[in-house]
């Protein structure tokens, strides 16, 4: 049923090295306790995935992966971490049976997927290279056959980013939300010494000048 036999050539060696990198990054993400370390290990995993895309003759997708995932999304997430307050250790207060249930569910899903993949007899593809110049062919395909989804996608990105700005913008700082007592107190206590200090600066001391 299973066929693990695999000829040992350069492609398989590169695949296994990159796969070890990717899985190491992902597993380290699960095991680290500090949030920034998790993001950096996932960025490592994304770079490894870019290597796997190069292996699959998808050079343009690999560079987009490095630009968007390892660059933009990791930095965006690090900004998200910096703008919110996190505990020193991301300690797990979940019930252990709940975590065990999640682990069992994930392992069961992986088992099903693994047996399905190993049990399937994939047809051998036509053994020809994808294209002479991959990126050129991809660009032609994007701007001829898939031009309507491409333009729709640009509209979607614009809408999403404007929406993100509107969501994250603090448009009414005077409104006090009753459920945000913690943040309001901290902002008040942060602004209080500043304003009183400003008052002291503007008003001359009451004692009068000796001269």
């Amino acid at each position, binding site marked *: 049923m299973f066929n693990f036999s695999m000829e040992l050539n350069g492609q398989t060696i590169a695949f296994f090295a990159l796969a070890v990198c990717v899985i190491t990054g992902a597993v380290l993400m699960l095991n680290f306790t500090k949030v920034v370390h998790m993001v950096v290990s996932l960025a490592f995993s994304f770079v490894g995935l870019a290597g796997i895309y190069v292996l699959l003759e998808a050079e343009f997708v690999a560079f987009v992966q490095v630009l968007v995932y390892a660059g933009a999304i990791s930095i965006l997430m690090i900004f998200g971490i910096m703008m919110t307050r996190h505990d020193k250790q991301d300690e797990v207060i979940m019930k252990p049976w709940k975590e065990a249930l999640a682990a069992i*569910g994930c392992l069961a899903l992986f088992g099903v997927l693994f047996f399905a993949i190993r049990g399937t007899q994939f047809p*051998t593809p036509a053994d020809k290279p994808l294209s002479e110049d991959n990126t050129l062919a991809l660009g032609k395909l994007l701007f001829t056959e898939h031009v309507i989804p491409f333009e729709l996608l640009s509209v979607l990105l614009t809408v999403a980013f404007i929406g993100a700005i509107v969501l994250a913008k603090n448009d009414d700082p005077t409104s006090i939300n009753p459920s945000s007592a913690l943040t309001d107190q901290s902002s008040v206590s942060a602004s209080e010494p500043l304003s009183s200090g400003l008052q002291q600066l503007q008003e001359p001391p009451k004692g009068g000048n000796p001269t």
Partner: protein
Amino acid sequence: MSTMLASFLTLAAILFCIGLYGVLTKRSAVIVLLSIELMLNAVNLNLVAFSKYGVVPSLKGQVFSLFNIAIAAAEAAVGVAILIALYRNRGTANVDEYDDLRR
């Protein structure tokens, strides 16, 4: 040839399961978002693998994965914006404390 395809699909399955476990168990909302990105990456890997080793190899799979990456970027931006708005209102970034609908 087809064993290579099976290896790529297995790697994608491992990544998907690790991402799913991270979504289900992590407390920090940022890490939950990143785990979703990992799951999307597993799907991209499947698309690119089938674009090379499928029955009819073509570049369509790579086009789809490019669209997927763009959607993932939009999702991450909106997710972080929602997270910051929630943090401003609730003062916490832990997903287990965002339980307004359950109370």
